[in-house]
């Protein structure tokens, strides 16, 4: 029982990270109908921004501290939002009216470009760097279970960001415009929506989410390298599809489910080798019965 509960906690903590990354994937998809594969690399850039910003902040604010961490997260988030908008401006905007497949291939190209540029030793270098401890971390012992403060923080932040995103999309003017663009770009433009601004904003927001996820991920596993985003990025993409791509609560649900599946499969002695196999087999089963994802709506494609 204790084993089960501890694995439940581990799985929720891992799943929350996936959920947080999946939110960014799903939001961009919701508006633009394409998968931004560079999302996982913006996540990595978020962690590296924090890595390089931290020593400067440490001179003013002592680390680890809550305030210091907040400032570092804020700065990294802004940097990544800028990078996200820049990627959109340089790589995706010129392809706005091209087939979706073109943009998709470009996204993969952007992703590889960032990964391999950052591996060059005059950028970050390919070796693993120790991530600084930004927050005071403790482990809570409850009834023989161990919950680390970092894991609690991840769950907490994911919940807040999910709510905030939902609020932005559903209740603000910007969100209404985002939804309008998502329905029909041309009609939205005719109604006076500035398409470029909305899409820029979407990318900025998505990249800011990625930066936060990157920093939280780095706090959990404090060794960062330019390819650190690839694995969680892939999982989060699957989570977004599982939840119903384009659906915010769906992404969170998909992330949690994937995290739990992986953790329980990985915790079996002798079977841990197959943890991804088991997790993904279950996902395929789910998608066989609900092809649009858990919370996604099946839409009829007009031909």
């Amino acid at each position: 029982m204790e084993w089960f509960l501890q694995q439940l906690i581990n799985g929720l903590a891992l799943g929350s990270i996936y959920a947080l990354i999946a939110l960014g994937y799903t939001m961009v998809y919701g508006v633009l109908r394409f998968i931004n594969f560079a999302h996982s690399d913006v996540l990595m850039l978020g962690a590296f921004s924090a890595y390089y910003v931290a020593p400067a902040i440490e001179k003013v604010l002592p680390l680890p501290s809550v305030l210091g961490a907040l400032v570092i997260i804020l700065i990294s988030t802004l940097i990544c939002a800028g990078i996200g908008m820049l990627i959109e401006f340089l790589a995706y905007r010129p392809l706005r009216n091209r087939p979706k497949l073109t943009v998709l291939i470009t996204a993969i190209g952007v992703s590889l470009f960032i990964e391999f540029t950052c591996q060059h030793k005059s950028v970050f270098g390919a070796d693993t760097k120790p991530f600084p401890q930004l927050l005071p971390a403790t482990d809570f012992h409850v009834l023989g279970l161990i919950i680390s403060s970092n894991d609690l923080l991840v769950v907490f932040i994911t919940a807040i960001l999910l709510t905030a995103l939902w609020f932005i999309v559903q209740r603000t003017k910007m969100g209404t415009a985002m939804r309008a663009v998502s329905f029909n770009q041309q009609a939205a433009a005719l109604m006076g929506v500035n398409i470029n601004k909305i899409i820029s904003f979407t990318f900025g927001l998505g990249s800011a989410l990625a930066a936060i996820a990157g920093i939280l991920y780095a706090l959990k596993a404090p060794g960062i390298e330019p390819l650190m985003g690839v694995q969680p990025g892939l999982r989060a993409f699957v989570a977004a599809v599982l939840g119903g791509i384009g659906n915010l609560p769906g992404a969170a649900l998909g992330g949690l489910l994937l995290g739990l599946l992986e953790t329980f499969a990985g915790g079996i002695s002798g079977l841990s080798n197959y943890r991804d196999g088991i997790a993904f087999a279950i996902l395929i089963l789910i998608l066989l019965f609900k092809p649009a994802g858990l919370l996604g709506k099946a839409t009829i494609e007009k031909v």
Partner: protein
Amino acid sequence: MRDLLFHGACSAIILTLTACGGGNSGSTILVGEFASLTGKEATFGISSHEGTQLAIEELNAAGGVLGKKFELKTEDDQSKAGEPANVVNKLISKDGVVAILGEVASSRSLEAAPIAQQNKIPMISPASTNPKVTETGDYIFRVCFIDPFQGTVMANFATKTLKAKKVAVFTDVKSDYSKGLAKFFKEGFTKAGGTIAGELDFNGGDKDFKAQLTAIKSAAPDAVFVPGYYTDVALICIQAKQLGLNVPLFGGDGWESETLLNIGKDAVEGHYFSTHYAADAASPKVTAFVAAYKKRYNGKVPDAMAALGYDSAMFLADGIKRAGSTDGDKIREALAATTDFDAVTGKMRINEHRDAVKSAVILQVKGGAFKYLETVSP
């Protein structure tokens, strides 16, 4: 990109020599080296390369062998599968090297070995401990001990020094090195009367190990054997500590890197690993090497990979000297006939499988540094 990295990594002297495009007909002996100068196991490659480079410089300062000086041509394989085959092919067919030195990681040595064997070019691995490496063929040698020995050493260490009865094994299924070491440890430990409390796996590069570590904890072992590489091991130690798994963790020579200490910090404190030599051991050969290395590389203390890199080059030079020729067959014969070679990492001989027979040392992480604990002879 590779050229850029290569330029950065090699000294100006070597660069100038290479630019002249030596070959072997001239006044130099061209030796090829491939190492992971960048990428996941970069510190291994950089260490072994620096050791090799120091050896070549010392040899040349002493006049070289057979009246010729050595010229080292280094290629970076970026710690990536697929690259070793490319760079070793290039070293042999384009540059025409007389011998190959490399690699640290067994998976990458295994990739290059068939190419060296096919071309009848002797290859000396400084630190690949998986037995399969030299099984590739009779041109493949190594100057380190092999995993069956290292596994047995750690099994004895677990039973005798740690007094462990139940040990869990946590293996990196992506690495030949890790799987081999885990296998030989399990054999040795069960033979010595111990029980394996649990066998869990991870994939090198994973960041979350809590699922497996929770399972290990519930099996209540006396110690955990983690035959992984330092980046993964550091994260494993951190998460084990978070989960309250307060038993000794121990592993093999894949642990030895400053990065383990930088990332793992107090979480790696008190844990143990076996390796090839200890920089704080009191032997004149080691002291002289450590001093020369520190002088050459701005006070950096050489780790085992640096010592083995140095030994691999010295061993090759010794072989060429005894062969009296730079012909691949003759060098091979001379190397295979080595009975007593005095290396920095201890006296060694080459056995019928072309593996070095020598002793191992066990180090412990103490006060944020690696401290010598004991020596185990074969």
